[in-house]
């Protein structure tokens, strides 16, 4: 917080006020003069507080460090890239072997490699030149020590020319990431390890952006997209850099052409090898890719599910049809049996009725016989005939029920008068009903 101006005036120093260094400590802050409270972790000033608290800085220390950091920003970038230590072996290199030198390492850019921007290369070059300029070496007493300086110049020449840089990047093995071994895969994260490989391979792509390898949660489309991209990889990688030197003297044109042809063939071969290598890389990767297995299983599961469902449905339909048929058959059989039973029952009932009628008729006839044909003494054959004839007549006039009723009345009666009375009332009933004419069945109705 900057100084604020308060509208207060300070008193003058009293007479005779003396203190060492003009300062006198008198009191102490009030005991327990603080409350523990929680600061809201918000805002720029809290960030400053957090920074001080975490690094245990005082206000002035923090101010100084912050000021330094702010001031340093301009030159900050210069430092970081050159901070790589220089390999003493590299310093001994001969500039003639520039083909085998690692240009990035020479400029101290081995952390960046193909990612280094032109700006970075220029700056790195300048830094190295300032350090290794032959005149500086000469000043230090080592004249003609310009070998490494030439290396630097060559490296810059290659890296600042886009065509040459691509040629070098194509064969820059230091930037390659070896595919993970089985051992590594067993231990590490499969996706992370392979992602590193493809990230490094992606530098050769003519097409950008390159789809990322993703992780175990990637969707099917992402994974398919990734493999499609890589199986159709369009690479700018070329192998001119490894060409054998073509003699540039004009003496032997044949020799020159021969070399050129040889180089062209070598390039083609290497390119083919590289394509095969990438293909194998992809095959290896996809072979172990759990995601593909999972997607296949899921697809199979979906297909199987459909099939199983269909089969189940068919089975169910067949079962239902069978059950229905059985039920129908059963019903038909039952109906038949029932009809048969009914038929038999009715037959039996008819026979029983017939028997009852016969029995009743016997009772009727028996009753008149018990009543001795309503005469005293032996009944004459004519009387018996007449009585029985009347009995027959009445029997013929009444139906089975009335017959049964009549038999019921007569059954058990032995006294002739009573039997006679029954018969008489029956005849009267029949006459009243008009079934019998007055005077018919005289023997019974009299």
């Amino acid at each position, binding site marked *: *917080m*900057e*100084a*604020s*101006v*308060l*509208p*207060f*005036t*300070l*008193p*003058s*120093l*009293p007479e005779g*006020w003396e*203190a060492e*260094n*003009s*300062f*006198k*400590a*008198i*009191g*102490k*802050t*009030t*005991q327990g*003069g*603080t*409350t*523990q*409270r*929680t*600061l*809201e*972790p*918000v*805002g720029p*000033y*809290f*960030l400053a*507080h*957090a*920074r*001080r*608290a*975490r690094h245990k800085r*005082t*206000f002035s220390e923090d101010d100084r460090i912050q000021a330094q950091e702010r001031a340093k920003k301009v030159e900050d970038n210069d430092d970081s890239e050159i901070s790589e230590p220089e390999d003493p072996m590299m310093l001994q290199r001969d500039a003639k072997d520039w083909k085998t030198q690692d240009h990035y390492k020479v400029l101290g850019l081995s952390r960046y490699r193909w990612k280094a921007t032109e700006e970075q290369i220029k700056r790195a070059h300048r830094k190295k030149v300032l350090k290794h300029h032959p005149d500086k070496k000469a000043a230090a007493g080592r004249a003609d020590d310009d070998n490494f300086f030439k290396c630097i110049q060559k490296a810059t020449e290659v890296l600042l020319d886009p065509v040459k840089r691509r040629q070098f990047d194509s064969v820059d093995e230091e930037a390659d990431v070896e595919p993970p071994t089985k051992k590594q895969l067993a231990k590490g*994260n499969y*996706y*992370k390890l392979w*992602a*590193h490989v*493809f*990230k490094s391979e992606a530098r050769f792509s003519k097409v950008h952006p390159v789809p*990322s390898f993703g*992780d175990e*949660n*990637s969707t099917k489309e992402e994974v398919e997209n990734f493999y499609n991209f890589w199986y159709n990889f369009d690479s700018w990688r070329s192998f001119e850099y490894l060409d054998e030197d073509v003699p540039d003297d004009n003496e032997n044109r044949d020799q020159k052409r021969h070399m050129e042809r040889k180089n062209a063939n070598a390039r083609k071969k290497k390119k083919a090898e590289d394509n095969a290598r990438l293909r194998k890389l992809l095959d290896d990767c996809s072979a172990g890719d759990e995601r593909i297995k999972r997607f296949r299983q899921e697809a199979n599961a979906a297909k199987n599910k459909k099939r199983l469902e269909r089969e189940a449905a068919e089975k169910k339909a067949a079962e239902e049809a069978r059950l229905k048929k059985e039920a129908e058959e059963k019903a038909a059989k039952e109906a038949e049996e029932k009809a048969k039973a009914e038929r038999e029952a009715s037959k039996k009932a008819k026979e029983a009725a017939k028997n009852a009628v016969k029995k009743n008729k016997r009772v009727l006839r028996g009753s008149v016989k018990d009543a001795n044909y309503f005469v005293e003494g032996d009944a004459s054959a004519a009387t018996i005939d007449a009585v029985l004839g009347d009995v027959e007549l009445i029997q013929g006039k009444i139906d089975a029920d009335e017959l049964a009723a009549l038999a019921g009345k007569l059954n058990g009666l032995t006294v002739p008068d009573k039997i006679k009375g029954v018969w008489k009332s029956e005849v009267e009933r029949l006459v009243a009903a008009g079934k019998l004419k007055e005077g018919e069945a005289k023997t019974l109705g009299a």
Partner: protein
Amino acid sequence: MADNGVKSGPEPSERTTIGITFGNSNSSIAHLVDDKAEVIANEDGDRQIPTILSYVDGDEYYGQQAKNFLVRNPKNTVAYFRDFLGKEFKSIDPTHNHASAHPQESGETVAFTIQDKEGEDAAPSTLSVSEVATRYLRRLVGSASEYLGKKVTSAVITVPTNFTDKQKAALIAAAAAADLEVLQLISEPVAAVLAYDGRAETKIEDKIVVVADLGGTRSDVTVLASRGGMYTILATAHDYEFAGFALDKVLMDHFAKEFMKKNSGASDPRENARSLAKLRLEAEATKRALSLGTNASFSVESLADGLDFASTINRLRYETIARTVFEGLNRLVGSAVKKAGLDVLDVDEVILSGGTSHTPRIAANLRYLFPQNTRILAPSTEPTAINPSELQARGAALQASLIQDYEAEDIDQSTHAAVTTVPHVTNAIGVISLNEAGEETFAPIVPPETAVPARRTVHLSAPNGGDVLVKVVEGNTHIKVTKPEPKAKENGDSKAAKVEDADDSDEDDSDFDDDEEEEEEKREKVWKIGSTLAEAAVKDVKKGGKVEVSITVNSDLSIIVTAREVGGKGGVRGTLTSA
């Protein structure tokens, strides 16, 4: 980076950050343009996006579109769900969900049953409140991404001060499910203060701020000490009665009665769910109109029984019928100040935040409640005030931009209790100064409730020049109540300015100020000089010169005092060991 998919959050350099206010009624999203926070309008052009999701025929609607479905499709519309996050069913208040999807118990959490798929016979799904929050946040982030033209990866989200750790965890989980990294959850009132302090023209000073966050379903008042740009919450008060919906209710009742009076025999529109929803929507619109103009119309087609209704209301009438609510809000603010152990005279600034703060009457009431030199930051009282509805989102966006370059781990460590919990001094530390009458008064340099370690530098005048005495003392305030006969007291302390106007107006809401207080008396804040800590001399100051005094209080309460003439060399430096 190659291992992007494996890491939990995006790299700091690949983040696109926004600030989100995830409110119970409305939400906002904001981002930073040229160091200034701007609230983003969504596809519908809304900057306050209703926190509502609605499903119609399998289509998801959110914001204002979803809100309109409260009339026609209340069952499949989820509203007011923010406060249910991370809570058990038994501890939620479902009052506001009566006119939308009803919350249900679902295991440990709360859920809603919503028909969110297409088709008449599709089975309704049970969505947990986290799932609803995830879907809503996804829409918010989608709108922001569309506006910014790149995928938003991270956000700072504001939460109420009384959000529990469980609720915070639930919110972070819901955001993570929406593919959003939560950089930090910050308190809503603090976000509001930050929005004001983050303005380039704002000078950071020590002040006591009251943030009245008046929302749709709840009102939260927070008293905080802003000390050197660091904020410490001193007290909070929460209220679930006096909030925006209470004002809606007043208007609804008013117009429902008028409707029934105009159409004799018509049924009460408040008794029919659909009429009630229409009434509520229009009442809210009318309330908003009344915050801007002095007259507002209210018209609903086919309010009830197929009868249209149109009417107008003026602001005075509204303020009369809504008086109880306004008074309740006043009491709430007063109680929060009292809870912090402070007096209204101690308050330097009142920030009105939240949608309900647009109401002019509320700001006017607070104007009367606080002394005149207290700034009331509301649109109707301060022309430079920021739109209260946008404060929190802006604050969140500012905070997001501040911390977006830090690793998640760094943020965690910096917000750890070991860093945030610090001692705060209870007594002020200052120097003795002279007022015009030549009396000794206290000039506060480190005010009370300042977190230590703290450093303050001030310039004091020495008009007579020569040798001056810097006498460092402790100080404290008390409220001096003066009975009628006024004693001209000009000690230069601007905080002791007369508050006659405030007293007059206190008749309106005298229920706040101390009850024993009599009418004509004057209340002033007076600094009392405490024990002397140190003395230092600055010699040979030029006539009319200034003396710079710097006081650093360390965490162990030891004090370093330096004093020198402004522009001069050398100076005095001394250390006071702690007690």
